[in-house]
């Protein structure tokens, strides 16, 4: 187990700082990537307030809330994983990362069940969209956002789970130590970020106008 310092860096410290900055820079691009969709959503929600509320009531709050809980738990286990990495407990790291990935998969499972429900209810926008409330057009607009945004989020989850798998493997191979664990930390940052996206998606999509 040695410290890997790439030739362009002076020392390990500098490499560490550079990679952390780089990761946050990347996350800033992700903020704006999702931001574009959030903006579209906000504009249309302002314009078509009522139909959005009604469409939102067709989503399942219980499943959504459970899923949020699942993700928050996975964030905890991720943070604990990094903590164990700092302390150099190889087995605990593997355990926590594996749990994190498993929670991620539970999330995706629930998500796909929801998609399936929507499919059964003919709520997929397009020629087969069926809506018996008022204002089918704007409702279908809501569902476009629902699918595109959660779909894009799910894609990020899939990538995150892949990363966890790789990290578990590398930990198992003994690549990390209490000094060198940067990849785990970066993986953690990515995971938490994806979690944050969902933290916003949940109230915006599921809780639009529940009080009516």
């Amino acid at each position, binding site marked *: 187990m040695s410290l890997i310092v790439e030739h362009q860096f002076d020392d390990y410290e500098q490499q560490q700082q550079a990679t952390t900055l780089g990761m946050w820079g990347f996350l800033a691009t992700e903020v704006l990537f999702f931001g574009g969709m959030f903006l579209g959503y906000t504009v249309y929600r302002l*314009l*078509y*307030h*009522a*139909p959005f509320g009604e469409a939102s009531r067709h989503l399942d709050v219980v499943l959504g809330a459970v899923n949020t809980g699942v993700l928050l738990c996975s964030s905890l286990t991720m943070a604990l994983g990094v903590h164990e990495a700092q302390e150099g407990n190889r087995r605990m790291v593997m355990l926590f990362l594996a749990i994190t990935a498993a929670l991620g998969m539970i999330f995706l499972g629930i998500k796909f069940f929801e998609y399936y429900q929507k499919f059964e209810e003919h709520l997929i926008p397009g020629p087969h969209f069926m809506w018996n*409330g*008022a*204002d*089918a*057009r*704007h409702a279908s607009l809501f569902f476009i956002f629902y699918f595109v945004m959660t779909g894009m989020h799910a894609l990020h989850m899939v990538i995150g789970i892949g990363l966890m798998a790789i990290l578990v493997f590398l930990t198992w191979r003994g690549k990390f130590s209490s000094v060198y664990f940067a990849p785990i930390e970066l993986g953690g940052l990515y995971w938490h970020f994806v979690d944050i996206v969902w933290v916003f998606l949940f109230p915006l999509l599921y809780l639009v106008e529940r009080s009516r």
Partner: protein
Amino acid sequence: MIGEGFRLFPVQASTFAEKLDRLYLFLVGMSGFFAGLIIILVITFAVIYRRRADRAPEKTRTSLGLELIWTVIPLILVMFIFLWGADLFLDQSIPPQGAEDVYVVGKQWMWKAQHSNGRREINELHVPVGRAVKITATSQDVIHSFYIPAFRVKQDAVPGQYRTMWFQATKAGEYHLFCAEYCGTDHSKMIGRIIAMQDTAYQNWLGGYTEETPVQAGEKLFVQFDCANCHESGRRQRCPNLGGLYGTTVALAGGGTALFDEAYIRESILDPKAKIAAGYEPVMPTFRGQVTEEQMLALIAYIKSLSPNVAATSTEGARRPQSSVPGKKE
């Protein structure tokens, strides 16, 4: 003017053109001054201080004073230009009272226009000299842009939305009409003529025409599409009376209000369930796919005419120069 041959400055044929050209020439002058200044300085320095073996460059001094000068002077200048431009722009955004109403629909790749008395034109538009003309434009497919260089005005025609612009011609003649927003294959063929005529000639041209006005056409359509069946018969209790509503704010079922304007009427016809008037059942069927954009304009004109106090002066549009996105405002 069409067919006039080579020139370096466009004809000036509207009130706005005169005002705009003054601003433009000012800008040309100012740019000429600055560009000239920079270029002359650069050339002079390059010649005087060209590299010579017997001369070393001098030490660069800094000067906060100079920096401030060339920050503040341009700043003041551009703010002046901004105000001048903004003034003209706001003028241009607000059609004057009593302007001649013309409806324009863009579609790939032609312009259809209709005058207030119903006379239609394709790729041509007759306008009076000396009177303001207000164009309300929309599009049936993609975005187009209604552009009359001689008048220096332009407005995009956006599908699903109504946009207005206005001008007042000052010189009789034939001018170019262009589509200025790229709209597909024959974008460059989506052109036509604006024919500005003296008011009397214009009235003759218009008056010699007997086809129905948009209001009349709209009235017929109102019957033809069976709107009247609900909105004008004894069933009035079940359906709102459309008289006197234009320009007012109507209450919606489930709270909220909406301004009864062109966009709202359009939405009520195409998508009646989007906004339900308070106290009524959502039984009105949609007419999406049945009403063309031109028929829509006629229906709107008719429904506007049911609110005589507003429609007669046709100022409502004036107050709201660019109708909102359909469904805007809750």
